[in-house]
């Protein structure tokens, strides 16, 4: 009986000359080293591009009027005239914007995904419009049309910020919803007796949590950085205060406020991400229906 794999047998195996693995790789070691080197260069250049202004800002904010290293600007910031009020207003506006944006955009995005997916392209275009239309056009139009009682409230700005944040919020939600089989999950929930609210609360929202958090962080960053609308609507938010505040500190306090805003956004981002991770870990450990 011919051995299995031998010549002429049913399982004849063609012997292929073995070759070094390197020959089948994407390039020679030298070439790969060169690619890695370029990657490092790009990374360093990008890092320098982003980090140098931040470094300069931090350095300036940690100097006093005489140019010596000092935390004076940060110590003086809370007591700076108008800063606390501006920060409080910005926080309130941020909270209102996040709430309105979420309430408006989450159900809309889900409805479009589940019921009328053909409208997704239209929404893609519509939600980009706030980027194309300058904020100054939006706010001047709104101020010309809205009644005085609406203009008297700072929360009118929140509704404007919702429009400004729409491209980022919609895209985050769209990506999150696209990553799950929304239609099947929704139908599974409904067939098991879940109404729309319970399906939204127990099934959809937990599964798009990263997208929701991402949308929230982007919205907060936008609100804390928006200047044009707030200044034209005559409300002193943090960015407006930074521009308007003028003391003998030669700008150290303003830069300190900017740095605080930047670091604050980062801290918020880290908090949100770690909160999400720890919640995921907790829910995985949690047993019981």
């Amino acid at each position: 009986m011919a051995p299995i794999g031998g010549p002429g047998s049913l399982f004849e195996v063609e012997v292929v000359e073995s070759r070094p693995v390197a020959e089948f790789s994407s390039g020679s070691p030298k070439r790969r080293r060169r690619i890695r080197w370029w990657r490092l260069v790009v990374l360093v250049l990008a890092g320098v591009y982003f980090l140098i202004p931040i470094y300069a800002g931090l350095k300036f904010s940690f100097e006093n009027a005489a140019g010596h290293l000092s935390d004076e600007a940060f110590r003086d910031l809370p007591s700076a005239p108008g800063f606390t009020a501006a920060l409080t207003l910005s926080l309130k506006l941020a909270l209102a914007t996040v709430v309105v944006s979420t309430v408006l955009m989450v159900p809309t995005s889900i409805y479009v995904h589940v019921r009328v997916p053909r409208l997704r392209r239209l929404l893609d275009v519509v939600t980009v419009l706030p980027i194309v239309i300058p904020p100054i056009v939006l706010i001047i139009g709104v101020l010309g049309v809205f009644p005085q009682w609406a203009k008297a409230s700072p929360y009118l700005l929140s509704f404007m910020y919702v429009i400004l944040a729409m491209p980022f919020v919609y895209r985050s939600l769209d990506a999150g919803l696209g990553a799950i089989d929304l239609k099947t999950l929704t139908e599974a929930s409904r067939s098991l007796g879940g109404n729309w609210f319970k399906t939204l609360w127990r099934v959809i929202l937990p599964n798009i949590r990263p997208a929701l958090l991402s949308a929230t962080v982007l919205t907060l960053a936008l609100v804390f950085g928006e200047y044009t609308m707030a200044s034209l609507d005559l409300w002193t938010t943090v960015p407006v205060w930074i521009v308007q505040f003028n003391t003998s500190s030669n700008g150290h306090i303003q830069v300190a406020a900017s740095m605080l805003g930047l670091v604050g956004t980062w801290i918020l981002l880290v908090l949100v991400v770690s909160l999400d991770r720890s919640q995921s870990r907790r829910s995985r450990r949690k047993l019981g229906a």
Partner: protein
Amino acid sequence: MTQMKDIPMTNSMVQPTAAAGAAVSLENLVRTFGAVRALDGFTLKIEPGEFMALLGPSGCGKTTALRVLAGFELLDSGRVVVDGVDLSDVSARKRDMGMVFQSYSLFPNMSALNNVAFGLRMRKQSSQVRRKKAVELLEMVGLADQAAKYPHQMSGGQQQRIALARALAIEPRVLLLDEPLSALDAMVRAELRDQIRLLQQRLAITTVFVTHDQEEVLSMADRVCVMSRGHIEQVAPPSELYARPATAFVAQFVGISSRVPVDVSNGEVVVFGKRCPVRSGEGRTLTGGADALLRPEDIAIEVDTEGKGFVTRKSFFGAMTRVVVQTGDISVRVDVRSDVGSDIDLGAHVRLSIVARDVLVASRQEVVGPDAAATP
């Protein structure tokens, strides 16, 4: 893969309930999508506790029929009646129908246990009851040890078994299975197929199963509804469907048939030189030119240098080998035992003969489903 436990039917969850075994009646269903008539006067009665399979090619309307029954699709006209109650306008969440989907539908944010308990939670059952019933159902599908795992930590087969347990947890009046095995590999599919059938028989729950896989249908269903273009071609038990297809479409869609031109005269045809009676059905009314639809096992093959046919292809299927013979313009498939098939060489001249008592005959003009001649 964890085996399903053969536990005794002693607890409340695995005993047939009053709700189990509902009679389902789909009456003259019409559903159109633009110019496409997905359901065209579809009428089907399903007996209590029956396992009914909807079988047909893509686009025949089988999934639409299931979704209409589940309440996920609105009807243009017609009625969905369960146990004498018209559910046509009842929301999906109030129909008490458990559904297992084709794609993995477990909630990714919940453990297996919480997935199974979800329907009970929606019914406001206490947490103790939810947990007890969910554990029982997980034991029933042999996955009690996976209770704490999340969907992404489980295999496809395990996920579908959890989905089955979840659908059964609400003690549904009707169990709907929308191609639940299609995403699984062959071995898992065969195992889960047997488990689903076993559970369905134990619980005596009315089940509607949508698939395009004939093997699944023939091995699982009490009756099969073969669909084409939104209407029913035939409703029959699997054995009858295979042995006595009512139409040429069924003959070619269920199992494999070769079409051989014949002349019908006085209810008889001559196939491969042998006179055979025409099988009861539409072929009885035909005269003149027609096609005989022959199963691979209806034909015998013999190597003969004088034979008119020659072997163009052989496919090995373990105990059986399928031989494709070209005779004139016709391609005919013949099943032989593999020990016989191994003696038949490619290109060999062969002689074919008919071994069936009678043959199914269809009009030559009739448009049928997938061309069976295209595949071995």
